[in-house]
């Protein structure tokens, strides 16, 4: 187990380093770092001071060392627009993104699994076919387009829900959250559905395929032959067995939710860190872009690591095959 953990941890560190090199290469090597990292409105003296602080007058490998050292200390530069440390600005936006991602995850599981099981039990029924057709659309249509349709239907035509923003927030465990106020909740519904649709389609397909496979197993036939109610067969015998692959996918896809939130947040003007990234790109606020990328990479890599470790605890076959390979 320790061998596996060390190995997996090494891979994660490698991934983070690779991304750091990519970001560093992008900022320092391709463009002129003076343009990238220093506010274009700065005076000559400020430019000289910043160049010295960031070590831009040194050779490239030394600069990389300084970049890594500063990054490890949480110093990823200061925003041109806000004039404050870039990391602080992003961390302020983090709760909004996390709330959106978690609510979307809950939605995609709570709707996706029942629909997938239903379609798997009756694959040739009209309902089953409709669910599959819907999931193919949810899977292949661009996320921003689905979000726009949601806005067009529910905000513009029907006028039931607000089209954007976060609404009223309230304090919960020291964080500002939307889902506890009525106004916040109405603002949350559409973006959460939008972000959930892609994962939901994925879960539907997976749950359907596994349900079809499991329903043919002898123990399910035996459970039915024993005269158990259909409800019990589905809830206990089928559901328990399809959860293993579904839970894996949910874990692995959690990290990508944070990245997909960029699109949803932009469409719905949700004040999370994804929208901050797009705003920063448009304003050329590059320290914030760099800080966002490093933080997101850290989040995704950590989630993947956590999921893998938990999964290998549950299923010893995985760490055995990893150790051989």
């Amino acid at each position: 187990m320790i061998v596996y953990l060390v190995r997996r941890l090494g891979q994660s560190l490698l991934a983070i380093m690779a991304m750091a090199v990519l970001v560093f290469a992008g900022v320092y090597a391709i463009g002129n770092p003076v343009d990238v990292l220093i506010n274009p409105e700065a005076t000559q003296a400020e430019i000289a001071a910043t160049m010295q602080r960031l070590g831009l007058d040194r050779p490239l490998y030394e600069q990389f060392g300084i970049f890594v050292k500063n990054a490890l200390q949480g110093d990823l530069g200061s925003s041109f627009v806000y004039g404050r440390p870039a990391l602080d600005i992003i961390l302020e936006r983090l709760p909004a993104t996390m709330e959106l991602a978690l609510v979307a995850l809950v939605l995609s599981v709570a709707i996706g699994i029942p629909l997938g099981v239903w379609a798997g039990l009756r694959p040739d029924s009209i309902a089953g076919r409709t669910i599959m057709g819907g999931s193919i659309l949810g899977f292949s249509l661009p996320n921003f387009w689905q979000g726009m349709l949601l806005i067009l239907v529910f905000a513009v035509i029907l006028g039931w829900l607000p089209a954007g923003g976060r609404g009223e927030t309230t304090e919960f465990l020291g964080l500002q959250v939307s889902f506890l106020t009525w106004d916040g909740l109405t603002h949350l519904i559409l973006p959460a559905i939008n972000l959930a649709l892609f994962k939901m389609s994925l879960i539907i397909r997976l749950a359907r395929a596994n349900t079809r496979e499991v329903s043919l197993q002898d123990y399910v036939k035996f459970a039915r032959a024993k005269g158990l109610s259909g409800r019990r067969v589905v809830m206990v015998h089928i559901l328990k067995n399809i959860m293993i692959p579904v839970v894996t996918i949910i874990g692995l896809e959690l990290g990508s939710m944070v990245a997909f939130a960029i699109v949803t947040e932009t469409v719905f003007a949700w004040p999370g860190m994804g929208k901050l990234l797009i705003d920063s790109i448009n304003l050329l606020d590059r320290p914030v872009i760099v800080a966002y990328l490093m933080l997101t990479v850290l989040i995704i890599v950590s989630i993947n690591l956590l999921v893998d470790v938990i999964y290998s605890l549950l299923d010893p076959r995985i760490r055995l095959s990893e150790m051989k390979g």
Partner: protein
Amino acid sequence: MSQITANAPVRVDSPARRILRQFMEDPVAVIGLILFVVIAALAIAAPWIAPQNPYDLTQLDIMDSALPPGEVSFGTGQTYWLGTDRQGRDMLSGILYGLRISLLVASVSLGLAITIGTIVGVTAAYFGGRLDSFIMRIVDLQLSFPAILIALILLALLGRGVDKVILALVIVQWAYYARTVRSSAIVERRKDYIDAARCLALSDRRIMFRHLLPNCVPPLIVVATVQIAQAIALEATLSFLGVGVPITEPSLGLLIANGYDYLLSGVYWISLFPGIALVVTIVAINLVGDRLRDVLNPRLQK
């Protein structure tokens, strides 16, 4: 002559003919294929069939700004079947030109990504060992990050531009092809015909590209149809977010973004129609891809 054919054994279809015949058995897939061919033809022919050149400012009339679908121009008397945008640009023409850019970006990046991915994948599978595990580490590393995040990183650093979007899409997509080609090539490599080719002392390059590669093509085609739909969607998303193609060469995604601000005030057509064009294109490719997957899957063959 007729005698020879009469005595000939049961005619065996060539693989391409068999695939074509099986493909045609599914009417939904045929509709998808026809739709895609029509869309591609419209995109290619855009400069000749579009009612106006939407990027020639002299042809635009600001009086025709944001006309709803079916209105007639105040100046020229032409009918705007899909309405106009804020600059008085005919949406139908805008969509035809936009399709052209969307499909151009997707197909060029597809071609480059397949080429790079195939070479890398075949090389990894053929030589194996450390080279293989090194290449596959990189592929796994890249695939552990969402495609949209990698593309955004690149474009945030490189800036806007058709060439830059293509570069970003190639970098995002090559890994899928490399993995696909490698996994089928590694199975093929152990077969006798490769050993036979080796015994003939053929060069590595010749064995890799003339013997190994042709047998890895079917899964590659399936992945390519899925990926080209993904590429179109990703390009549209990037352009919608404002980091993709420049304003002077708007793809469907950028057209949708341009109309997005007016959506809330009920001026729906500027965003909706390019969106429908995008969706129809993606769905048509997916219908073709789904059928190809069934037809090319050896496990489903008798």
